[in-house]
């Protein structure tokens, strides 16, 4: 019995192992082979030789390891190389996207671009800027933030501090559902009731309402997480001193978690700033400066990108403006993201974990 088991096993602990540098060597070889074949066959697409190199890499890892180390080790190596390939595949588009946006965006991005509108510039000629679009975006996002932050935080407080029973369950469920609403559907909703049924015109405020719907669940979720991190001992300590519950929440719970809540709000702002679809349906777009978000069409930064791209007729000037606006938008969103995470790390509540 034990004899049969024994026979299957290598007699020694010593396993033939590939040297540590072998994955790098295989990777270099695969890339060279991919490039070589591409050059020979006259393929100029980077995607093609990249994919070829990846396939060679995985295949070679398996073949070589199977020969030297055995099947199990070979499988392990294939898994490792696949995981590496997956990671690289994901990084490449990110790098390309940032790189292209910066490279093509800096062409026309200057102070003039940031401080002028498209008022007297047609789509195909150079010049003009994004001042009106920045203004519109700031106003629309600002209004959405002002509406959704108090409602969102209060809802989260309800769920964490008061919520028991059916109502809380329903709210929790629908917050999850709301997180998944496509932005275009939020836009259609405001369209149907504000513009079609109430017969109000296109305006920045209409767009802000749709953005509110998108922003609310994000704020509720993140605030909820932060409030849950506040240790119960703090609440009990305050209640035990005879402090009423609402004072406990406003004076103890909220200040403790304010860093995390701020982070959540900033991430939510970053998310809706880039929303194009609802703005497209509700704000309509304009090439002029309109400072009043409650009256008449406005512009917005993401919509500006889309319109420059779509109305360009393939012209270089409009593409340049689209890239410059995209760079501005990405910079804004990334800075918000970085700042939010900075605050999160700096103000993180010191719990056990």
């Amino acid at each position, binding site marked *: 019995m034990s004899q049969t088991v024994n026979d299957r096993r290598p007699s020694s602990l010593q*396993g033939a192992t590939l040297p540590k540098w072998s994955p790098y060597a295989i990777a270099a070889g695969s890339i060279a082979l991919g490039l070589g074949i591409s050059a020979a066959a006259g393929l100029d697409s980077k995607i093609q030789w990249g994919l070829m190199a990846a396939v060679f890499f995985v295949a070679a890892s398996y073949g070589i390891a199977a020969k030297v180390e055995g099947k199990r080790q070979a499988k392990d190596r294939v898994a490792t190389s696949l995981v590496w390939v997956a990671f690289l595949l994901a990084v490449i588009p990110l790098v390309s996207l940032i790189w292209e946006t910066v490279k093509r965006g800096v062409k026309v991005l200057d102070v003039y671009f940031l401080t002028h509108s498209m008022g007297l510039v047609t789509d195909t000629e150079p010049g003009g800027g994004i001042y009106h679009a920045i203004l519109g975006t700031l106003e629309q996002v600002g209004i959405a933030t002002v509406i959704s932050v108090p409602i969102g935080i209060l809802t989260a407080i309800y769920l964490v501090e008061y919520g028991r029973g059916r109502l809380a369950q329903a709210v929790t469920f629908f917050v999850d559902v709301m997180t998944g609403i496509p932005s275009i559907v939020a836009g259609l909703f405001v369209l149907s009731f504000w513009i079609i049924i109430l017969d109000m015109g296109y305006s920045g405020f209409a767009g802000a309402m749709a953005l509110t719907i998108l922003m609310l669940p994000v704020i509720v979720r993140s605030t909820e997480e932060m409030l849950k991190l506040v240790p119960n001992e703090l609440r009990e300590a305050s209640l035990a001193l005879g402090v009423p519950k609402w004072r406990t929440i406003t004076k103890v719970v909220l200040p403790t978690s304010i860093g995390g809540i701020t982070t959540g709000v900033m991430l939510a702002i970053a998310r809706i700033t880039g929303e194009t679809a609802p703005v497209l349906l509700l704000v309509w777009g304009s090439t002029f400066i309109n400072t009043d978000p409650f009256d008449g069409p406005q512009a917005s930064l993401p919509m500006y990108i889309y319109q420059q791209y779509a109305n360009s007729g393939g012209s270089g000037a409009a593409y340049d403006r689209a890239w410059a606006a995209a760079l501005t938008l990405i910079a804004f969103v990334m800075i918000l993201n970085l700042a939010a995470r900075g605050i999160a790390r700096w103000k993180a509540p010191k719990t056990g974990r």
Partner: protein
Amino acid sequence: MAKRIDVSGLSAYYSSFRAIEDISMAIEPRSVTAFIGPSGCGKSTFLRTLNRMHEVTPGGRVEGKVMLDDENLYGAGIDPVSVRREVGMVFQRPNPFPTMSVFDNVAAGLRLNGSYKKSELGDIVEKSLKGANLWNEVKDRLNKPGSGLSGGQQQRLCIARAIAVEPKVLLMDEPCSALDPISTLAIEDLIGELKERFTIVIVTHNMQQAARVSDRTAFFNLSAVGQPGKLIEIDDTERIFSNPSVQATEDYISGRFG
């Protein structure tokens, strides 16, 4: 089957912190060796260096030699994966794979090492479960999840899983600390039977347990918190518990500290 372990000059580190320092000892085949000592003295760390599990912990690093018969586990070209097949391990908390049935749990290690015929696999599983004194309790529910068993049964299932691959050495890291007294007794009886076939090393906090099950006992201690743990002495269990040669051992055993 069972193999002898010879440790010489072994130190283990967590990043830059040295957890155990310069340990040398011999562990006899077909016997039970118990490690005792206060918490944090590095006995579990030392145990994990014996099947190269220590280096799985981030920052874990080992210096020194561990000879399994005539092969150094830390020698050049040694594959840690094959080391762990030779030196099995049972953990503090029973950890059967939750998504696998009782049968699959026992067969898990075998399936890694090659293909077996169904009947062959069934034989080995039965033999291992019998070896772990669990067969009669689970033979009617081999296809039920392993996590449905009681704590003591789960631990014996883990022992069955470990012995199914016929290791040379079996390491046990406080195998009874999460169990009730009756399950503990069952495991202790089992250890007594298993030592006929394996070299067994057991870490325990329970000195009666060490006295009951082991042939030899090693006492570990550390001079202060933050200092590395050291081997104070290793001797026949009877001698350690009646007439140890080091005062600290006697203090610890008689409950004067630790």
